[in-house]
């Protein structure tokens, strides 16, 4: 019994060092392989560690991004870090970029023409800006004349807003129901 406990806490240390040293999110698969454990065990170890950080109000945290894990600083320490690096506040996205990004996030994969259809304005600038910021990327081509490029969101997008994955996006207001109500009311 003690042997197993020892082993688990050793593996926890290994996971900690892996997440610490990596500058990007490390996939559960890679972690499991490295510690030579199945994914469920690896996941349990990561979560134990993450909970520990949280409960002890440590200066570091572990976040999940699309089935991968990344170590980051605790939000409470932000002011101090900013003071040390004298870094300016992050500029938020403009409304145009934010709207375009939201459309891509909810409707992906989506073409530029489809985005323009929803926003009612050209999306050329916004899409290329979002691609440049690595919040959006090409995910394929549509099987239609001209084979237009389809866009989707990136992991950087998830990180930027603190989402775990696309499924976690806040739901849009019930669209179908409202549309029904609406068509009824129009027909009345």
């Amino acid at each position, binding site marked *: 019994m003690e042997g197993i406990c020892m082993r688990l806490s050793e593996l926890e240390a290994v996971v900690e060092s892996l997440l610490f*040293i*990596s*500058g*990007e999110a490390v996939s559960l698969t890679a972690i499991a392989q490295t510690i030579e454990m199945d994914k469920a065990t690896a996941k349990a170890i990561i979560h134990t560690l993450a909970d520990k950080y949280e409960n002890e109000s440590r200066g570091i*945290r572990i*976040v999940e991004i699309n089935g991968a894990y*990344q*170590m*980051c*600083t*605790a*939000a409470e320490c*932000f002011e101090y*870090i900013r003071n040390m690096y004298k870094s300016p*506040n*992050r500029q*938020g*996205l403009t*409304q*145009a970029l*934010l*709207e375009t990004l*939201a*459309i891509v996030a*909810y409707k992906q994969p989506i073409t530029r023409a489809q985005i323009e259809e*929803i*926003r*009612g*304005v*050209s999306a050329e600038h916004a899409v290329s800006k979002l691609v440049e910021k690595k919040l959006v990327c090409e995910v394929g081509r549509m099987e239609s004349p001209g084979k237009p490029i389809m866009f989707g969101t990136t992991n950087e997008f998830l*990180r*930027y*807003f*603190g*989402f775990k994955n696309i499924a976690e996006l*806040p739901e*849009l*207001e019930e*669209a179908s129901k*409202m*549309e029904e*109500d*609406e*068509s009824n*009311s*129009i*027909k009345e």
Partner: protein
Amino acid sequence: MEKITIRLDAFEGPLDLLYHLIEKNEIDIYDIPMARLTDQYLEYLDAAEDRDMDDMSEFLVMAATLLEIKSKLLLPKPKNEEEEGPDPREELVLKLLEYKKIKEVTEEWRQREEDAALVLYKEADQAVKQLKGKESQTLEDFLQGLSMEDLYLAFRQVMHRKETKVDHVRSSFKTVPRDLFTVQEKMEYIRDMLILQPKTTFLSIFRKNSGKMEKVVTFLALLELIKRKEVQIVQKMTFGEITISRYDGRDLHEII
């Protein structure tokens, strides 16, 4: 109408302007008074200061759409149809609803954006870049000091095994195994370790459960690194812990 100054670039586009008018006038989106909305929309366009044609075109297309819907509503309905045809406003309403949903969710996202900005991610450590950077392997690295004699012995061994049909696995125990650990390989190991831990202890360069041979080779590798002035070792007192760090260009007497 009161005199107002309007900048179209304050709006994200024609839909944003329409949305603004609807909110401002508390219009029921499901029953839009087309005449009133169209008039107001056109007034805004008239009053706009920044009437650059490029920016205006999208607003003008919408103006045309609004006028079209308005005129369709004015047309008398065909007599023989008891049921009403589709409401000419329907497409516009759907678009506005769709736009409204996006607009509303972005408000929530603003907060998330701010909160998430407080969390910082480290860029890939220099250490990891160095570890990864050494990916491309030279032939020398790959062959790990293999000599012609090693190759010859391997050939002899394999031919012998074939003739005597000795079991493949067991026969390899009989022969002198090529050193699994080379000084070169162990030097690389210690270098890698010092990338991750700029300062480490003497004991930690030896792998857990390493055999006598591996320990000796590791030690030789360490001596070689010291000789090449790649690392420096410090022992503050007799039998005290020995620390190993990358050579920082200072000679030993300067440190102590």
